[in-house]
């Protein structure tokens, strides 16, 4: 068990800056997830912690000890890789015990530790199997056992579930949470999948473009995103955005207007702003009492319905002639999620409201959040 601290870490590959001036404190025993789109620098951050790459500037501390110049094996870390990276010519026992054998532990200790690790990941009786004879999930468990036997202070997991099929991924998600509870070790987890980040972590560190965007518990990131990037990245399907400006008496844009006192929330009239509303905070007019503070009625018509089983994603066009783009949801479109029992059809005209208490306002220029409630 140990805390991990990144102090002003910058990593550049030539002119390409992968991570810039990263400051991050991971607490002892915490499950922290680094999440962000591909190429955002999350893997580089993890490699820097592992010691697989040297930071260009800054320092890395593990358990209060400066490990910036130490090789991976002396950092008290163990790592699980995206491609699992089992050694194909070794059986399960040899794979799990490889690190211990290199360190010349005595036979008895090795066997004890391997047995214990195999028990934790439920691999009993498979010790002499070769990796090629195992399923993806079993191989992943071997990789985790290989990390456990080292009894590391910090576990590093680089997209360990990315190559598993959907069902197994969800199963392994709960397995990893149990593992965290059982081992009570610091776990740093890298993923681009915000669902994994949300479900497993104590805290989530959202990274974009080599910069840390927000470090908070998952629900804080969801309910009070610090900026536009976090708001759009966390949550599936993504938030609805309307680009406009702060007016003297609220927010105005091409398709959506909202009245409030700018002074009260610290907004400056005349400044460009973006309004964000999550799909589940939009309601049909007849269900308006479900909203804490319902907005005024918005007229729209139904464009596309996507029944998901437990809910129906309903894409609305706020005006008839709104252009839909292949790039994504654009201005003038509004997504809401409805109960599957709702009798609604494509092409139908509807009236909706949204919950002002859950509406977010962002400064368009700086992308920083201004308010997380416009009630």
């Amino acid at each position, binding site marked *: 068990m140990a805390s991990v601290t990144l102090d002003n870490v910058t990593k550049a590959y030539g002119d390409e800056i992968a991570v810039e001036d990263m400051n991050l404190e991971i607490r002892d025993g915490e499950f922290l997830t680094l999440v962000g789109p591909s190429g955002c620098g999350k893997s580089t951050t993890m490699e820097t912690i592992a010691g697989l790459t040297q930071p260009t500037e800054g320092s890395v501390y593990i358990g209060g000890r400066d490990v910036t110049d130490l*090789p991976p094996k002396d950092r008290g870390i163990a790592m699980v890789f995206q491609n699992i990276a089992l050694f194909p010519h070794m059986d399960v026992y040899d794979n799990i015990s*490889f690190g211990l054998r*290199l360190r010349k532990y005595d036979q008895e200790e090795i066997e004890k530790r391997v047995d214990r690790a195999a028990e934790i990941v439920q691999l009993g009786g498979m010790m002499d199997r070769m990796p090629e004879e195992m399923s993806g999930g079993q191989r992943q468990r071997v990789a985790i056992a290989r990390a456990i036997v080292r009894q590391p202070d910090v576990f590093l997991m680089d997209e360990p579930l990315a190559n598993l099929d959907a069902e197994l991924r969800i199963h392994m998600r709960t397995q990893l949470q149990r593992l965290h509870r059982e081992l009570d070790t610091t776990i740093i987890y890298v993923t681009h999948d915000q669902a994994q980040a949300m479900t497993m972590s104590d805290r989530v560190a959202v990274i974009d473009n080599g910069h840390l965007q927000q470090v908070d518990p998952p629900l804080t990131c969801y309910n009070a995103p610090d900026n536009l990037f976090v708001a759009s990245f966390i949550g599936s399907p993504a938030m609805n955005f309307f680009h406009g400006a702060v007016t003297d008496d609220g927010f105005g844009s091409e398709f959506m207007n909202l009245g409030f006192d700018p002074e009260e929330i610290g907004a400056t009239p005349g400044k460009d702003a973006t309004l964000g509303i999550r799909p589940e905070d939009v309601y049909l007019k007849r269900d308006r009492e479900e909203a804490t503070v319902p907005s005024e009625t918005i007229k729209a018509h139904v464009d596309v319905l996507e029944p998901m089983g437990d809910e129906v994603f309903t894409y609305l066009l706020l005006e008839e002639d709104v252009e839909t783009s292949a790039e994504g949801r654009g201005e003038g479109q509004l997504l809401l999620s409805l109960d599957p029992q709702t009798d609604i059809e494509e092409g139908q005209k509807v009236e909706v409201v949204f919950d002002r208490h859950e509406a977010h306002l962002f400064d368009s220029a700086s992308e920083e959040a201004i308010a997380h409630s416009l009630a």
Partner: protein
Amino acid sequence: MESSQDAVAGAGTGEHAVEDRRARLRRFWKSDFVRSAPYWGIPLLLMGLAVYGGIIWNILISLTDYQGFLERPDYGNLDLEMYRQALSDSAVHLTARNTFVLLVAFTSVSLVLGLFLAVLLDRDIREKSKVQTIYLLPMALSFVVTAQFWLWMYNYNDGLVNTVIGLFGLGPYNWIGNPSLVLGAVIFALIWQFSGYTMVVFLAGLQSISNDQFEAARVDGASIFKTYWRVIIPQLKSSSVSAAVVLMIFALKIFTFLYAMFGTYRPPKGTDVLATLMVREAFQLQKWAYSASIATILLAMSLLVIAPYLYYQYREGAL
């Protein structure tokens, strides 16, 4: 299944039967088998006649007593007399021993050297991602060029080899003239030509191993040397097998090289191999049947070399 049902249905009247036959003929001409025939048929015919036909004929001749140009081989009287002669011939023993030494020394040194070069280059590629084809260039030279070139290198009076070791106060050695040195000299020249090839085979194998194998070993505490020794090189099994087979085949068809180097069917005694003995018996002495039996022995040796490879491929499910 479908066509047999058609046949039964059409058997009712003669007209139907004719039409049915035509339809089947048309289907036959349009079938993949017929339409692809030019592509596999011609190579099959050429291979069958030139290679396998040749082998069979050679074995047949080796069972006769055919020699000289005066009469045709007598296929009526086949026996193993030539093999009996060959197995008790001291020239065959000597050349077989040389062939074997050449095969083992050349193959193993080329493999080890090629692997070593490949690992060095692999480090370079993994860190700087650039490839140097310079090591492969010797492979592109023909046997004749290499032979001539090394003949000059080994020249007693002013060859580069003697000049260089002369700087250290050694030599000069008569690399070509001394029977105990000449085989080593030939093997060295061959290694120079082929270790580049081995290196490329190993390098391809190394490049197919993903980076996280290295990272996993490193996190587990393995040094670079231990990573290669215990994790990476054991994964190069199939590369080693295929490189070794190619090298051994080349070692067995060394005739070209020796002929190009010495310009005669009789290379210096120390480097006389089965292949040169065979050519000498055939084209200098016209002992066709006897040289055919040596050829068969050489073929058997080649098959012996390939057999483990075929078995390996078979076990891996690649055949």
